[in-house]
């Protein structure tokens, strides 16, 4: 999923006929003061983050003057909000709120079709509203081939008691146009002059649709750089996840990799990361090894391949070639099963790498090796 920052989502909303507050970006207190001066009104300073819940974490500041905007920005920039460092602020005109609504178009994972969601309880966490005041939420399933029915939108307009029903149609068009998983306005503010403004904006895109969404791809480039190892893995359609322990994992298949994480922790070990490759061949293993070595220093690398379609001998050959060419930073334990497994194990034996057919035995060996490396860190596996 691609989670656009608020300012990016607002750029798209605005270009698609959804009104948003006037605003400017600021990377320094001076820029924030200048933005306030330029906007010529009271402003809101909003950190542009990937995490949710910034308001609850005290991450929003109000300012009536450029001087106050400067001090507000001084406080926010560089601060840590829910584990993320604030680098960028959206400085926006403050909107006079008469009423706050909630509107969204998203995927109903149960019905497996789009759903429109509208509520008169805007400005608060919609999941809480769903729990405490379910009657305040209107949900309308949509046949994706037809789009929302006109009478359904009229129902929403009546429920909301305003012309905002019309906005839901626009929001749905956005959802479709950008292959979104979620587009959300919370709150949609109705001002004292009866004007609708999207005071917040969320647009989450579908990674798998990026090939036909050049605009989203472009906006993704603007996002703070992700971990280079994760980026390289993504390029190859692999998954790399960093974790806090000391056992590296190289495995194929999402489900099996998760099962290995569970198994390691059941035996008292702590995973350091994992690289999940799809079914790969010998050269693929070589590259995957290389990525694991560059990713992070681990105390032991556990490799697991269940070769249902590929061949163990080719996978082992890829490992042998890597080990001959490059020094390994940590001991390696391999679990290999599937086509040509006897040949695969012979190659690994010749290379001096311990290999197993049984998953539990391989995990036990890896956990033991990791424990020997850092006995103080992992007292729980001293008996393993």
């Amino acid at each position, binding site marked *: 999923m691609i989670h656009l920052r608020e300012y990016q989502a607002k750029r798209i909303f605005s270009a698609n006929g959804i009104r948003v507050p006037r605003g400017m970006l600021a990377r320094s207190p001076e820029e924030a003061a200048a933005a306030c001066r330029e906007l010529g009104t009271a402003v809101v300073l909003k950190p542009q983050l990937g995490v949710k819940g910034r308001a609850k974490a005290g991450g929003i500041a109000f300012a009536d003057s450029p001087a106050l905007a400067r001090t507000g920005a001084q406080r926010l920039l560089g601060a840590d909000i829910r584990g993320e460092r604030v680098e960028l602020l959206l400085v926006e005109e403050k909107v006079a709120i008469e009423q706050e609504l909630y509107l969204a178009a998203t995927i109903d994972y149960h019905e497996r*079709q789009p759903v429109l969601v509208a509520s008169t309880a805007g400005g608060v966490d919609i999941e809480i509203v769903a729990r405490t005041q379910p009657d305040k939420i209107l949900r309308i399933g949509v046949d994706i081939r037809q789009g929302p029915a006109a009478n359904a939108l009229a129902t929403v307009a009546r429920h909301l008691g305003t012309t905002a029903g019309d906005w839901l149609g626009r929001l749905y068009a956005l959802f479709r146009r950008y292959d979104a998983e979620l587009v959300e306005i919370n709150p949609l503010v109705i001002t004292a002059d009866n004007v609708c403004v999207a005071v917040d904006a969320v647009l989450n895109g579908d990674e798998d649709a990026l*090939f036909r969404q050049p605009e989203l791809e472009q906006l993704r480039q603007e996002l703070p750089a992700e971990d280079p190892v994760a980026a390289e893995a993504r390029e190859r359609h692999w998954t790399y*996840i960093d974790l806090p322990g000391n056992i590296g994992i190289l495995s194929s298949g*999402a*489900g099996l990799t998760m099962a290995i994480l569970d198994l390691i922790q059941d035996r008292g070990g702590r995973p350091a990361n994992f690289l999940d490759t799809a079914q790969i061949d010998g050269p693929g293993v070589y590259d995957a090894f290389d990525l694991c070595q560059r990713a992070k220093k681990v105390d032991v690398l556990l490799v697991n391949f269940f070769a249902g379609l590929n061949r163990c001998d080719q996978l082992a050959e890829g490992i042998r070639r890597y080990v001959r060419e490059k020094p390994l930073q940590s001991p390696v334990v391999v679990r290999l099963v599937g*086509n040509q497994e006897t040949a695969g194990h012979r190659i690994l034996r010749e290379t001096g790498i311990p290999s197993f057919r049984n998953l539990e035995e391989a995990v036990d060996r890896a956990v033991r090796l990791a424990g020997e490396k850092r006995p103080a860190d992992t007292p729980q596996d001293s008996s393993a």
Partner: protein
Amino acid sequence: MSILVDEQTRVLVQGITGRAARHHVELMQRYGTRVVSGVRPGAAGERVHGVPVFDTVREAVSDTAANAAVLFVPAAVMRESALETLQAGVRLLVMVTEHVPRHDTMWLLASAREMGARIIGPNTPGLIAPGTHCKIGFLPADYYRPGPVGVASRSGTLTYEIVARLSAAGIGQSTCLGVGGDAVVGTTFAEVARLFETDPETQAMLFIGEVGGGMEEELAGLVHAGEITKPLVAYIAGRTAPEGKRMGHAGAIVAGGRGSLKSKLAALGDAGVPVAALPGDVPELVRQALKVN
């Protein structure tokens, strides 16, 4: 017997001239699957491992009476290809391709629903019915044995891992089906459970789930409501997965408590479904389930 496929299943392969498709046509044939035709626009008249290739699905279906299709086409053309297949009257589509845009999957499901067709996947290794020598997709045949257990899973390699253990323990399978690792898939655990419930060969069911999504909870609801009477066992991978991180499968992300292990264990527990904590625990639980029957 089995669900969805059997000896009468006549398989059409879309995108048959691709490298992976060619390889799997051969493996499917070797297993005994009747692969009757292939489609690749512009390649009419060719043969792939003896299978005739057509330009369109309609021609392939009318010439070879195909009644199931496996789609090896790129994600970007999946919607178009699958719609062509539905419109040609095929009522079972297995979409092995990964990375299909979600809007496209939803579109296809709406069409399939209307036409009374079933879609398996996308992002599925396919299905195999060991007693009928029919497999569609790329599940590696060596690990499967005919028998009484119906298996459904969200993950390919994890299925091989667990089914290999079942087979080694002398427990065979009626049908094994990968529902697919995406957040939106054509056939859910609950739907598979209904099919196994009415299949005379299936005496017990095994569901290999993951954290994320709501499929396990939905399945538990069905059991709880008494709609599934055959014994059922579950395993859930990712019990130690960190919240908020996508664990490889698009479906396997726990966010805001949704799809958490806790919610799945609670739902399955309420329904009286035994849940294995680790792959190694599965064969014994399945053995007990078979005894109950």
